[in-house]
């Protein structure tokens, strides 16, 4: 088994303007996802919007307001999962509810 990080990217603007019925559906979607893939999920969290982010660059000793990269679809949450291979990880990722955006599946690096 390998571990994969599923990064959830979505349009914050669209999400902020979403109807309560849509956000409710999204929450239910995540609960259903977590129930279905209970055995595969190692961890996961939703993140506060990028407006709350702070970027730190230790080499130049700077601390600035905002996310590391400004993108229309921003990182809004993640799941850490366990899967046999990439196909299995993709199959799980396809069950993650997204609003308008998409997901990035990244293998966790293994150090020997």
């Amino acid at each position, binding site marked *: 088994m*390998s571990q*994969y990080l599923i990064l959830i990217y979505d349009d914050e603007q669209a999400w902020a303007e979403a109807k309560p019925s849509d956000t409710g559906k999204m929450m239910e979607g995540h609960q259903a996802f977590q129930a279905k893939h209970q055995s595969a999920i190692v961890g996961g969290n939703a993140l506060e919007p990028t407006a709350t982010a702070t970027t730190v660059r230790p080499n130049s000793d700077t601390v600035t307001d905002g996310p590391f990269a400004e993108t229309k679809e921003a990182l809004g949450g993640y799941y850490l999962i366990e*899967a*046999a*291979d*990439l*196909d*299995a*990880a*993709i199959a799980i990722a396809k069950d993650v509810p997204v609003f308008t955006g998409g997901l990035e599946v990244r*293998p966790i*690096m293994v150090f020997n």
Partner: protein
Amino acid sequence: MRVTRDLDAAEECVQDAYAAALTTWGERGVPANTGAWLTTVARRRALDLLRREALWRRNAPLLVEDEAVASPSDPAEIPDDRLRLICTCCHPALSTDAQVALTLRLLCGLGTNEVARAFLVSESTMAARLTRAKKKIASAGIAYRVPSAAELPDRVDAVLSVLHLLFTAGHTAPSGADLVRRDLVERALQLARMLRTLVPENADVAGLLALILLTDARRASRTDASGGLVLLAEQDRSQWDRAEIAEGVGLVREALRRRPPGRFALQAAIAAVHAEAPNWHATDWSEVVALYDVLLQVWPSPVVALNRAVAVGFARGPEAGLAALAPLAAEPQLAAYAYLASARAQFLQQLGRDEEARLAFTEAIVLTENDVEREFLTRKLEALQP
């Protein structure tokens, strides 16, 4: 392939098997089941390598699941091995370029220098691209296995896209001095035949194999003695490869039995109409238009719409053809497409609207990147000069 546990080693074994094939077949003739023969040779070679170098100990990535080494003589195992390999090479998580490159390298046994030539890039660029692709397979955990029955149709589609790309790139080279890249066409045909033996029940595979055969059957008549382009209308049909046509037509019939028919089956059916017409004028253009109508439904694309419009011109006259082309001028995907301008030019010429035809030919000449096509269009333009 599972035997080696290492894609690089697998690559060498496939190479060696092809080299052995050329020597042995030269001496004793081609065996009945060439695919099985190659896999068996590659597997034996892999076992040799394993014993000698214990390669898998060095880096055993998760390319392969743990299982006992199957007997090389088990015939049921052999098609699976190649299906496993081609589905890995054509995994949608790899870039299209990487998919084609890996397929040429591992399925066709081409050397890195030959793959580089196929892509018109330097050998070092190709070596880096192949290394990146293999690294992704290993570190992202792209499985080295036959897709499940549920996944198979999607994965075969991905393989077919790669083969189709390979074939079209060979049939009309997108750039460069030659119209046809024979090597690429041969590879596409070889792989399509292989895929056909691996998933014989798949109608799309039958359709693509038919399309390749029926298109390739015209190869001898597509260029003249000096390498110039000869249009379908002017081709010497006695030079067409009748054996390929017969095989292709049989496959088209089989592929069209599935409802709705697939995109490749329909394209092959159109090629079959041409293949069976004794000459250009006797072509059943209404049938061609009808097939394009269905194709537009299952595979809506501006290029298909363009081909349909051209067929309309032949079925109902140049005026009708121009009318069918008109709405496509606004299509952004066709804005830089030489065929739209050249089709318009030829209809305009037939209508005696020479001034407009000259403009359209000039536009097509600017847009095409194939030298043979450019020369052909230039000749047409020169013939039109007042």
